[in-house]
């Protein structure tokens, strides 16, 4: 049984799960309006009107939550020269051949990408969402502007959902990852295998 390494502090984890929760609620309530086949989600929120009332607030909370995490993690997610190298070998990653990949730090290129895509789509969701948030803000925007807004809002939402699906799958697929967010720790061997450079960093001087 190898040593455990601290990957996330409690704050980070609580923040993450708060976002996750808000995402699920916002996504379900949003999808209810997006496609008739998913309108039944509205029942989870007390019917159409309540869904319409709650969705913007859920979305707002998600964004605020993400803001918190953003400030904790943005530095670790800056794209580096190593990432470009790693990107070239992404194919091996998908076939599960870890050995063929250059060593990475706390996050690999794909994770960083997901981080920024999520951040970006949340910005779009917030901006466009406000534009047709009834009854408060919608009256200040022209119908044309709102038409563009609803379209962009949907696109951004889909992007966010897709990247989240990927995010979740990756966590399930790479064994030993989930405990990072459930317990905050990972096994040293997990770190060696998946984030060699980060492992060196945290074990340096021991």
């Amino acid at each position, binding site marked *: 049984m190898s040593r455990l390494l601290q990957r996330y502090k409690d704050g980070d984890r609580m923040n993450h799960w708060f976002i996750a929760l808000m995402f699920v609620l916002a996504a379900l309530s949003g999808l209810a309006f997006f496609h*008739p086949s998913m309108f039944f989600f509205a029942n989870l929120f007390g019917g159409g009107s309540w869904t319409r009332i709650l969705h913007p607030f859920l979305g707002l909370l998600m964004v605020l939550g993400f803001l918190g995490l953003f400030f904790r993690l943005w530095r670790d997610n800056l794209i580096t020269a190593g990432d470009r190298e790693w990107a070239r070998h992404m194919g091996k990653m998908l076939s599960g051949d870890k050995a063929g990949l250059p060593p990475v730090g706390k996050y690999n290129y794909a994770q960083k990408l997901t981080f920024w895509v999520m951040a970006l789509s949340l910005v779009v969701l917030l901006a466009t969402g406000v534009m047709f948030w009834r009854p408060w803000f919608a009256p200040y925007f022209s119908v044309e502007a709102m038409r563009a807004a609803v379209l962009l809002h949907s696109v951004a939402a889909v992007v966010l959902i897709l990247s989240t699906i990927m995010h979740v799958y990756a966590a399930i697929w790479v064994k030993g990852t989930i405990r990072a967010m459930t317990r905050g720790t990972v096994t040293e*061997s997990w770190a060696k295998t998946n984030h060699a450079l980060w492992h060196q960093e945290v074990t340096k001087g021991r």
Partner: protein
Amino acid sequence: MASLQSLDVVARSATTLPTPQVRQAIPQVAKLIDESKCIGCKACQVACMNWNDLRDEVGETVGVYDNPVDLTPSSWTVMKFYEVEPKAGSLEWLIRKDGCMHCEDPGCLKACPSPGAIVKYANGIVDFISENCVGCGYCVKGCPFDVPRISQKDNKAYKCTLCSDRVSVGLEPACVKTCPTGAISFGTKDDMVSYGEKRAGELKERGFQNAGLYNPEGVGGTHVMYVLKHADKPQLEELPANPRIDPMVSLWKGLAKPLAVAGMIGAMVAGFFHYMKVGPVEDKAEKEEA
């Protein structure tokens, strides 16, 4: 105001399966507004208020005859006055009765996310069913004529019902009943179209060369039509020249829907099979130690 039977509902918002299509024998109805006979007396506005038991706020004069100045949740029709000079020096005072056009292909219905909040009846009337309205305001974005208004009081969308309750029992809409000069007529769509074209012809004789019937194809024709003195320039009266459901709305409520759903499901399915084929990533170290 749902006053017809569910059998009469031929189109229903946010509904993926077909609605009853058996009622084929019902004649399509239409209201024809003959601008050349309209004296802007606003009797239709008052008739609408009285039949539908609406009473808007007593407003202010903002410097025009129009009052209320625009459609509101409690004013489903208003007279709009336009001082225009189609030819330089030839002043005309165009008076248009504004309200829902009851499109054959209604943008509001297309945009509405709430099942059954907006319906189209077999006779062509587009109606809002308030009990299903969630107040999202999508109908506002869907409408090419900027008609629906959402109440600040109850967050429901409102507009002209073409007096569907009266029509369903064989009466004409209240505004038609009231119009003192016969500027508003009501009948089957076919009759109204031919009468409208006749009137347009008579107006041409009277010197309005560009008189014509406003029954825009872009929305599949409308069940409220105008006889315009200047059908070539409907913009003179804030009527869109070629109204159609906005491309952004079509995309949003058209292609975007299946694509997105396919994408999301696709992503999950892909993940599943990837897992099954490649299997999980486990770190060697653990194995060795074991």
